[in-house]
């Protein structure tokens, strides 16, 4: 089976002699839904930065969709992220001066390979499936947090990226909005079968996923 994300003997540190990441083995299969949990301070952000190619491991292998990130130039990694990875932050995902629709199509403007067909049509379909048709041309600052996170999900989904990385996307949401958000994400997964790496410290969400990984268990950082 092809691994979507694969880390082997991966080490990373910001300052010498203080490893933030020290992972022997982490494999996430293509199309898999993985729940990654653990308290803060265990290198969660760093791991996501490594997996999305923003930073480079000091040693070992970080391979994403068959591309060895440790041997790939920064610009190539940026390009690959733009083309094949959708990313959702925990809050404030959206560019405040763009409308809902403009935010959703932004990845396709940054990377032309992200979507090969009609970008506008895709954006509108996504907005429809989020039930946000009436907000399409609104400023994102006029939306509620729940709505903003749904728009962020739509932006991550546009162009059918192979990997979606969600960095605590529900931590700012109440229970009802969390449920709505998770259902929506799962519904889209059923349709698109992307690889989902979902990071959260809310272990109640574990049930939505096929596999759960505890970060403190795999990361032997200093």
């Amino acid at each position: 089976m092809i691994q979507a994300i694969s880390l082997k003997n991966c080490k990373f540190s910001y300052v010498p002699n203080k490893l933030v990441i020290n992972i022997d083995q982490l494999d996430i299969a293509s199309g898999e839904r993985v729940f990654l949990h653990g308290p803060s301070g265990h290198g969660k952000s760093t791991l996501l930065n490594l997996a999305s190619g923003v930073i480079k491991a000091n040693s070992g292998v970080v391979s994403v969709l068959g591309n060895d990130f440790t041997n790939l130039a920064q610009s190539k990694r940026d390009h690959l992220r733009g083309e094949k990875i959708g990313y959702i932050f925990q809050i404030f995902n959206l560019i405040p001066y763009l409308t809902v629709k403009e935010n959703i199509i932004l990845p396709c403007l940054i990377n032309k390979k992200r979507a090969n067909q009609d970008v506008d049509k895709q954006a509108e379909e996504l907005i429809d499936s989020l039930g946000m048709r009436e907000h399409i041309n609104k400023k994102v600052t006029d939306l509620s947090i729940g709505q903003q996170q749904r728009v962020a999900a739509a932006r991550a989904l546009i162009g059918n990226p192979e990997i979606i990385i969600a960095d605590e996307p529900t931590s700012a949401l109440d229970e009802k909005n969390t449920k709505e958000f998770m259902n929506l994400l799962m519904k889209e997964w059923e349709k698109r079968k992307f690889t989902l790496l979902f990071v959260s410290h809310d272990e109640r969400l574990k049930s939505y996923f096929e596999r759960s990984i505890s970060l403190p268990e795999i990361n032997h950082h200093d």
Partner: protein
Amino acid sequence: MINFLTFKSIRNRKFTSFLCVLSIALSVTLFLGIERIRNGARDGFTNTISKTDLIVGAKGGPLQLLLYTVFHIGGAVNNIKMSTYNDIKAHRQVEWTIPISLGDAYRGFRVVATDENFYKHYRFRGDHKVEVMDGVTPVDTFDVILGSEVAKKYKHKVGDPIVISHGLSEVSIMSHDNTPFKIVGIMKPTQTPIDTGVYITLQGMEAIHFGWETGAPSGETIDAERFKKENIEITQLTSFMVKLKSRIAVLKMRRDIDQYANEPVMAIIPALSLQEMWETISYVEQVLFLVSLCVLLVGVLSILISLYTSINERRREMAILRSLGASARHIFFLLLYESSFLVLMGCLLGVASMYGLLYFVSPWLESNFSVYLPIEALSKTEWIYLGAIFVVGTLAGLIPAIKAYMNSLQDGLTIKI
């Protein structure tokens, strides 16, 4: 995507962006405007007289000769003999001459006696010649043509009689009441000292002084026959202008005149003297230039400050763009585009308002300061200035752009709130 984002982001910060553009525009306007005024003043000054190769007058200060012949300022210590004039005029190298005889004033304006050559040959600001707006040029002894300023100030029309006073003071002590001059023409504005002159014939100048030979009026009535043009003999001049057939001969001719045996006379090259005179006051020009440079510096700094302060509040935006596949280089260029766009807008607005200002101010400058500012297309130098402003403004944007670049490398996908 960069164009799209730049545009949206500038629109998002409408007010600050507008202020930025405005400050650039203001400095561009001031810079170009001051440059134009500076050049206009210099051109206006050094082109007060053109085409004339030499000015000849009694020996004395060269500056003085220039001042009284061209600017009607001050007076000559000595006159020159008519025979000297005729002698030089007859030289085979001479193309034309314009005789000038000064001495009197009309209500504070200088009376200049000359002949038809003045109207035919005198040139200023390149190839502009003296033109009559109304009436004709003086032919008879008591004919007068007024400079436009004189006519405007005293609301004179063609046909009005005027009285010319002896000496130069505005309040005339002794008027030449018995020699009634008549206005036969009014000249078009030239923006040169001609506008403030009252022009009569050489014979007229002689006629004013009939019966004044002792320096005060003799009281005797003068026979009308004596005033007839053909009965008046011109005996002396104040100075005269010379145009040579070949410019190569100018220096030699000047030397010859300086060594003229029959009378102590001297010649100056007006273009050279004007240039020299301007240079003595050119520090004013340099100060103006420095001031406009400072204004420009402030404009460029305003861009730097406004972009730099916006960087921190936009850190989150940068991280989002990074997560969507933008490289740190993208972020760098995004900022750079923004600054160059603001500078470009500032330049455009600045040029537009410079022309707007010119349109309103130039008539006033022209009539009050003789600074002639035609509304012309941007000169090559101005394009270079604009280009330099654009480059410097964009370079100022480099500093926030580098800062944003460093930030986004450091932050990665971590959102700093």
